[in-house]
């Protein structure tokens, strides 16, 4: 494990040095990436320019959801988002090259073409969280204070597991890659808003099938002391770390199964 982390850090550092050869481009790209990431926040502000509450939630509460969701997603994207390009590696045959190297292919794919600009996307959620956390109408007991970092970490792990899980699908069918974006990018988007906006069956699906509700919605209900619109048991509000660990196990199994089934294109 320590060895894997060391290799991961080494490969990332190599790619950062490569990107730094074009400093102007790197800075511009970073700023532009931060702006793209901020667009979702602008969308939320535009909503609240017209109404003080959306589905019973105020602007600071929705921005809290945005901040936690975006931060978890960006960290997961920086660490493992590169796995999304597995299909390209399979198609071009470059996965074969990775398999003969003495480093885990997961680490190689995740670090491939790593760009520091992806980290610039952290800027909007960090600024939003710093602004909004002191303004939340929450009763800050010790439990609620601890819940914020816990939900950020478990949210990150859930998104990371979803990256690996959706990438594993590309071992079997390459063409459906775009559809799995509805889980990763779609999941990042839909967790920015209170789930009370959505149809009840959809929220049930997001709780029990694809556990996106545990990224921030269930923990946030606890932090904000809100009733669950679906009337689900209160214990679920504390289930995020367990869900994250379980999802990681599923993702690891899927990745290994995919790798075992992989047959080179032969070209």
């Amino acid at each position, binding site marked *: 494990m320590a060895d894997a982390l060391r290799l991961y850090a080494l490969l990332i550092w190599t790619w950062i040095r490569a990107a730094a050869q074009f400093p102007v481009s790197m800075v511009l790209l970073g700023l532009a990436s931060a702006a793209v990431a901020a667009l979702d926040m602008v*969308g939320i502000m535009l909503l609240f320019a017209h109404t003080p509450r959306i589905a019973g939630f105020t602007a600071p509460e929705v921005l809290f959801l945005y901040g936690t969701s975006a931060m978890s997603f960006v960290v997961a994207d920086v660490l493992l988002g590169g796995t999304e390009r597995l299909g390209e590696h399979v198609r071009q045959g470059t996965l074969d090259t990775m398999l003969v190297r003495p480093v885990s292919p997961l680490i190689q794919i995740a670090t491939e073409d790593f760009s520091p600009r992806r980290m610039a996307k952290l800027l909007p959620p960090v600024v939003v969280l710093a602004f909004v956390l002191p303004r939340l109408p929450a009763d800050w007991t010790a439990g609620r204070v601890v819940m914020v970092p816990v939900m950020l970490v478990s949210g990150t792990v859930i998104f990371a597991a979803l990256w690996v899980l959706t990438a594993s699908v590309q071992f079997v069918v390459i063409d459906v890659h775009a559809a799995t974006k509805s889980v990763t990018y779609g999941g990042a988007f839909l967790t920015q808003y209170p789930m009370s906006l959505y149809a009840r069956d959809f929220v049930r699906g997001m709780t029990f099938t694809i556990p996106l509700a545990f990224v921030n919605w269930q923990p946030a209900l606890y932090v904000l002391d809100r009733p669950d619109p679906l009337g689900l048991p209160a214990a679920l509000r504390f289930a995020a770390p367990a869900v994250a660990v379980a999802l990681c196990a599923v993702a690891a199994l899927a990745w290994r199964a995919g790798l075992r089934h992989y047959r080179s294109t032969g070209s």
Partner: protein
Amino acid sequence: MSVYPWVAAYAFRRHATYWLGAVAEAVTNTMFGFVRAWIVLALWGARPALGGYDAADAVTFCFLTQALIGPVQVFGGLELTQRIRSGDVAIDLHRPVDLQGWWLADDLGRAGAALLLRGALPTLAGALAFDLRLPGPAGWAAFAVAVVLAVVTGFGLRYLVALAMFWLHDDRGLQAVALVASMFFSGMLLPLVAFPGWLGTLAQALPWAALIQVPADVLLGRYQGAELAAAYGFQALWAVVLLGAGRALTAAARRRLVIHGG
């Protein structure tokens, strides 16, 4: 027969070949359409008649946005960029056809395939799940004209960004800036009619309004007679301005390009 229809036909065929990938994109577009529809329903629930839309208009707009992402390429990109980077553009310039015309024809073919493969699913799914405001045959015909103008305007914008590659060594920064502008000003976040104050006025005057907002308003039947002509005129004006700028830039790029043998 001119070569351009053939270019468009082959582009259509090439893009229609990878239909499974395009349909997979449509699945994601549909999913985003649902989430956005629920969000605007909450907003219009709090503010009925915001921007002159009712809830059905706003939900229709959401699905239409998702249906048009592929055809008008909101997220940007033109194959020409890679060809300039790799030097393959030299082959394009050797052809006895106009560079801009060739790629416009190619893009129209691509847009046709994208409209079929990526436009139908979000619209159908949205119509099944929500109360959409869809017009009769005359409305669809008016919409079709607006979509063609939207694709041409979108091409005009993307062609300018692609040509910048002649001057830049790394175009990704510019692509990202273009992406921000396109996502914000095309109405992807919210219908432009719901942008507050001067921002709304500005957004509705910029070329990105011609990509989604104008076709959507045509489909929703908000323009009749002379107003419809004015809406087409707005799109056509931007298309002409952008294509004109593209011509000037092409001429400048031709003078700049040095082809090394090899």
